[in-house]
């Protein structure tokens, strides 16, 4: 059975390559710190499955230490404005092909891989099919780009380095937040919050309970960075016992819109790093919270809309 391990090896090789390019780049003012950071990250991909948890933890802490001291970015470029304009004029819309290969192949692959069996066993773990398909699709996209554009082979890694270093340590943030979520869960943070909210919130009317549930979902999602982590806690604490059982709200409407209220929180929190912080880095915004700022008005209006929908339709 093919597992995610294969894609982790690919990631390890790519990140290792990025470290090597940095090690050879004298234009990076923080050359060795940047090299150390990506070397440690590559190690966690290649060996993470075999290392004792404590060793992995120490490696992660070392990465964080290096990142806190500050990473740098080299200034060397492999193309000029002129060369890009000339190439764009030559390739025209065919340039979009390698880029679009990735999402299309990811989708096709995730559908195909789920159904494939060898000797009655699934070829890939169905739960990991999409992630494995994404890994395969990027290889296909890279192959297309290399065959079509015929760049020097080293350009694939120097270009990956250029993009990865513009994202910097933010690239690792989603994983650290997942780890924080695991610690929160082990420490019982969710139950403490649920107890607090049911003890101190005014929940005397159906409308108050609806507002407490929807706003609670949004706020707790902002804290955890993930509506999936907030949903069981807030629904067990307020949604089911109060809105549904005490005030006879429709369970389908309450839980469906409760989850969507959580998504409003996702739009407003730096804890949802892969949606809000990583894109800001990827788009090279000066304001790290620029994406969140752009989303807050939409999120607040939608939260109010969700409360109104729940209050109007759940108690008919």
């Amino acid at each position, binding site marked *: 059975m093919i597992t995610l391990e294969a894609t982790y090896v690919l990631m390890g090789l790519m990140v290792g390559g990025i470290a090597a390019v940095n090690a050879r780049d004298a234009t990076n003012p923080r050359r060795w710190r940047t090299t150390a950071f990506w070397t440690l990250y590559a190690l966690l991909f290649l060996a993470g499955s075999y290392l004792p948890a404590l060793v992995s933890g120490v490696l992660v802490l070392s990465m964080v230490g290096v990142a806190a001291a500050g990473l740098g970015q080299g200034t060397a470029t492999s193309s000029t404005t002129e060369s890009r304009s000339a190439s764009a004029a030559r390739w025209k819309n065919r340039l979009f092909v390698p880029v679009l290969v990735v999402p299309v192949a990811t989708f096709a692959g995730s559908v195909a891989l789920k159904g494939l069996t060898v000797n009655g066993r699934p070829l890939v773990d169905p739960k990991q099919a999409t992630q494995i398909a994404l890994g395969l699709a990027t290889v296909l996209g890279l192959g297309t780009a290399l065959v079509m554009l015929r760049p020097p082979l080293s350009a694939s890694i120097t270009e990956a380095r250029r993009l990865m270093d513009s994202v910097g340590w933010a690239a690792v*943030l989603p994983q650290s937040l997942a780890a924080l979520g695991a610690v929160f869960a082990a*420490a019982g943070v969710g139950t403490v919050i649920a107890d607090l909210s049911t003890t101190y919130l005014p929940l005397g009317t159906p409308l108050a309970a609806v507002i407490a549930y929807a706003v609670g979902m949004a706020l707790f999602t902002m804290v955890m960075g993930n509506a999936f982590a907030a949903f069981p806690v807030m629904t067990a604490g307020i949604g089911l016992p109060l809105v549904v059982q005490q005030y006879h709200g429709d369970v389908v409407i309450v839980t469906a819109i409760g989850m969507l209220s959580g998504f409003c929180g996702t739009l407003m929190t730096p804890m949802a790093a892969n949606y809000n912080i990583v894109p800001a880095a990827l788009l090279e915004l000066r304001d790290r919270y620029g994406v969140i700022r752009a989303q807050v008005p939409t999120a607040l209006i939608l939260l109010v809309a969700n409360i109104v929908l729940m209050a109007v339709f759940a108690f008919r």
Partner: protein
Amino acid sequence: MLPDMLPLIGILIVVVGFALRLNALLVVTLAGLATGVASGKLLPDVIALFGQAFVESRYVAIVWLVLPVIGLVERAGLKERSRAVIGGIQMATAGRVLVVYLALRQVTSALGLVSLGGHAQMVRPLVAPMAEGAAELRHGALPIATRERIKAMAAGADNVGMFFGEDVFVAIGSILLIRGFLEQNGIIVEPLQLARWAIPTALIAFAVHGTRMLLLDRRVAREVLADAARVEATAPDTPAAHP
């Protein structure tokens, strides 16, 4: 009361750390260590837990494998071409480009095609350069703040479109989570019922975010004018100002 509240110290660290704009990676790690220790675990055990969870969630980083592809095609003029394509469409403005992407993202997500979008795959190489290019063709060079606002709205289009589209699809994670949670509590619901109640919010999300994007065009025009006026006022070659 006090010992029960102690695990919340991690949340306090996160809120203060993010508000002070400290290095987010450092803040998150310290919050994790503090929470673990505050809940009575030994430091080495907390470090091990943190490391294990970090390793187990490596799958969220697989999307970075797309960087060599994007980088190579950018090197060959992808952004330049994206702008040229948009330049050929007279109707195009930044806001309209983003509304079209929002609609595509929401509809494809509602059909379960969440993997067709994404910040690394679509927004950075295609959507953001197209929106920027459309604004530039209409207004000339853009002030930096305006450029950043357009890019940030492009990222927002991807998020809003996906979050409020995917729940309309019956087999998506969030619908299955709700169903599983209710089942544990002895309540059986059909995924289709849950997905149906995601539709009103999905429509409102499109109306609200779509409107904000169309308003973005006016704001861009206003900011470009204001910037031009400021440049003119400070330009040395206006002798009328110095009689």
